[in-house]
């Protein structure tokens, strides 16, 4: 209610205001005195209303458009996600198929080559690529998921040839030394010649030295190099490489030939390796 007590209401201002209002009313009713002002206000009101309606319509349209865009963006995201999943699925299917083909091929090769011997196939866990490409140590690790007891010095095969031998096993990882490791020696034969091919520390390259022979004896031998079976680790007559070069080395009264051999497979290209018992 009233916060202050009203004073005695004076009649004069109300009388004056009433007269003023009455004059206005009569002038307007009889003579249309305020038609202009009223028209202006009415027009302003109508325009304001139109403006507000237009703005609201535009706002509504924008909201609807925004909603549609949002829906499209959501649909697009869902489709992109589905496409990604589909692509991944396809890739995995291809990989599975490839793996099966690869494994069956490796199995077939191992069965053909070492039919009487047991063999297990292992997946590559890691290949020390840096050392393999730059330095003398060439090793790889195979994943022994089934926990098999894999002994040392067992031949390791890839594709249709041999690539190295096991040298140990740690925490379900089988360590394999490759032929190209400079501490590895592989007894090989080509023609009637036998030698121990030592790794050169270069990918796919091994070399052996032969003394006391003449150049003519190398003629007509062909390029293929096989395992000799000597040493008791590797089976014999498995093709492991091709002769790249034969270099004559002369040291005072000593003559020897250094035969550079290029291995036929590069372990980098394989994911599965067979270990032969």
């Amino acid at each position, binding site marked *: 209610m009233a916060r202050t007590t009203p004073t005695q209401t004076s009649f004069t201002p109300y009388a004056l*205001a009433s007269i003023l209002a009455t004059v206005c*009313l009569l002038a307007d009713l009889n003579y249309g005195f305020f038609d202009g002002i009223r028209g202006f206000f009415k027009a302003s009101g109508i325009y304001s209303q139109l403006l507000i309606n237009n703005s609201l319509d535009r706002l509504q349209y924008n909201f609807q458009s925004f909603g549609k865009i949002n829906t499209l963006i959501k649909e697009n995201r869902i489709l992109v996600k589905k496409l990604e999943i589909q692509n991944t699925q396809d890739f995995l299917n291809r990989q599975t198929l490839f793996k099966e083909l690869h494994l069956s091929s490796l199995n077939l090769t191992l069965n053909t080559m070492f039919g009487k011997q047991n063999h297990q196939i292992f997946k590559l866990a890691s290949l020390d690529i840096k050392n393999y490409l730059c330095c003398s140590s060439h090793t790889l690790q195979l994943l022994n998921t089934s926990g098999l007891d894999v002994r040392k010095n067992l031949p390791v095969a890839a594709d249709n040839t041999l690539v190295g031998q096991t040298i140990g096993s740690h925490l379900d990882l089988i360590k394999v030394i490759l032929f190209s490791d400079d501490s590895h020696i592989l007894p090989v034969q080509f023609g009637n010649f036998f030698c121990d091919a030592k790794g050169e520390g270069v990918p796919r390259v091994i070399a052996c030295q032969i003394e006391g022979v003449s150049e003519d004896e190398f003629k007509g031998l062909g390029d293929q190099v096989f395992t000799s079976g000597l040493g008791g680790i590797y089976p014999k007559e498995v093709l492991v490489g091709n002769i790249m070069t034969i270099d004559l080395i002369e040291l005072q009264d000593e003559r020897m030939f250094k035969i550079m051999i290029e291995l036929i497979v590069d372990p980098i290209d394989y994911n599965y390796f067979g270990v032969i018992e």
Partner: protein
Amino acid sequence: MISLRSILVFATIFLGFLLENFLLQFTLPFKVYLGIGTLVFSYWVYAIPESIHAFIALIYGLLIDLFLGQAIGFYALSFVLLTYLIHIYVFTFRLFSHIQLSIFFSGITTFVMAVHYLVFSPNHYSYFLLFISFIANMGAWLFVYFSLRAFRRKFY
């Protein structure tokens, strides 16, 4: 001096008239004319008589006439007279109950309505309509009174 409170009061009066015009389409078929705008103005004069005098009432009335497109002066004159009437009885109203206030404010609203009909639309002048409207405005006064009291206590 135009203060924020004056604008607030005028805004509520104007909204009252807009609501009145909006409700007419639903109430007139039932011969009911709710004078919500006049009731709102009456409430403010009743609640804050110290703030609404003759001049303010005249201005409010002229503005309402302008905005509603009425003949200029009708609501100005009505508001001035209503203000004077309420100011005279402002002490007496404090003794009134809600029903008495309803009758009084509904009565003056119906009177304004009757004059409006007589001046602008004498062909539609109807005692039945005025009587029904008087009853309806008693209820409308209670609605206006409690709504605006809550509003005044919160914002004014």
